[in-house]
């Protein structure tokens, strides 16, 4: 149940603060998203710049980079995901505790980018794990990464705690672990996780 905004402001003037459990819960979730200390390619340099003083990711509560997936809330796929690396990325994602989020940063992470024709590059990490925010760019500027953070925070804010649209960690039926692709004789097996990624319909 949402509180009327005007009423909230009026009561605030009187020194009474009201909120809902959902707002409080989501505020807590979105204000301390700790990213995993993990970079894949040149996008990682932009990610590092984002955390430093000029762009100051700390303003969003996401300055604590954790070197262990167990302590991290968010994975920034910062760079090219090669087919040799993809199983390890999925495994790291599996090791993270819920609630967890994924930002696919840059052209390579979202689609393969300039290496699309290559035999060795995965065409987007969203083929194996659910991605919350995609950022285009090669590499995206730190501002774009901040924008992705804010998009993710808005997404978290808008999530109800019950019902169909509830986040995955409150859904008992939602999968907790995603199958790690095998490195086969010619390609990754399977080439995509069908439950996460289906071939989008291209309207021409």
């Amino acid at each position, binding site marked *: 149940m949402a509180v009327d905004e005007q009423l909230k402001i009026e009561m605030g003037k009187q020194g009474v603060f009201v909120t809902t459990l959902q707002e409080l819960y989501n505020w807590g979730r979105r204000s301390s998203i700790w990213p995993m200390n993990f970079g894949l390619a040149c996008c990682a340099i932009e990610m590092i710049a984002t955390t430093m003083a000029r762009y100051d990711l700390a303003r969003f509560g996401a300055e604590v980079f954790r070197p262990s997936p167990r302590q991290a809330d968010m994975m920034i796929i910062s760079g090219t995901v090669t*087919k040799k690396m993809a199983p390890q990325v999925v495994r790291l994602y599996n090791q993270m505790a819920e609630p967890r989020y994924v930002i696919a940063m840059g052209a390579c992470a979202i689609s393969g980018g300039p290496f699309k024709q290559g035999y060795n590059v995965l*065409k987007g990490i969203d083929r194996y794990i659910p991605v919350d925010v995609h950022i285009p760019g090669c590499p995206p500027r730190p501002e774009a990464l901040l924008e992705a953070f804010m998009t993710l925070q808005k997404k978290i804010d808008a999530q109800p705690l019950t019902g169909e649209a509830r986040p995955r960690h409150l859904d008992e039926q939602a999968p907790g672990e995603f199958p790690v692709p095998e490195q086969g004789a010619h390609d990754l097996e399977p080439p995509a996780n069908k439950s996460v990624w289906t*071939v989008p319909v291209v309207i021409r």
Partner: protein
Amino acid sequence: MKTVEEIKAAIEAAVPSASVEIVQNPAPSAQHSLLLKAETAVAVAKFLRDDAELALDFLSNVTGVDWPDKEITEKVKVTKMVTKTVEGTEQQVEETVEETRKRVEPGYLEVVYHLYSMTKKHGPVVFRMRTGNRADDVKLPSMTPVWRSAEYQEREVFDLYGVEFVGHPDLRRILMWEGFKDHPMRRDYVEPDDFEYEPTAHDEVLKRAQAHQAAAAAAAEGQKGAAQ
């Protein structure tokens, strides 16, 4: 620095069993190279490194080249005995006919090494080795015991071209994973077809996406036919 011809003469003087060919480079750089036999290559390499005048102590680059089987079509003039009816009587006549013949020149894998000298400050000296074919006779001697810097580059050539280096201390794939069967830099390598989703395809990607869609449509047709 010595010219390639002089180096060839020096090699053949030092390693008598070595037979060295010169591969001409017609480009303006005229960087001619030495083609070594696999059996004597290590001895020649040691000579190139240890010779006081050459002192090629630095291996800068190892490259693989794939030369696929080449089908050559050529026109040959053949003289035949032909039975012909000339002025009412049958005669044996010699006739020259032009025939097109096809022959297959077998391909091979080639490894190219670029050498420099740090002490003498000269180079590069380029030498090559060729395998017998592209399938089962792909062994070449490793240069890692002579120049340590060959180790990773030879592993890369092994990974991407499939040349087996005899005498290499740690010959494993370096870029692709263990269990990968193909050699991606070979000309006849078939890439995995994952062009099912190409929203903004152009150029080469567009061609492959169209090929994928055609194949998928054909497969769907085949399934329909099987169901009926």
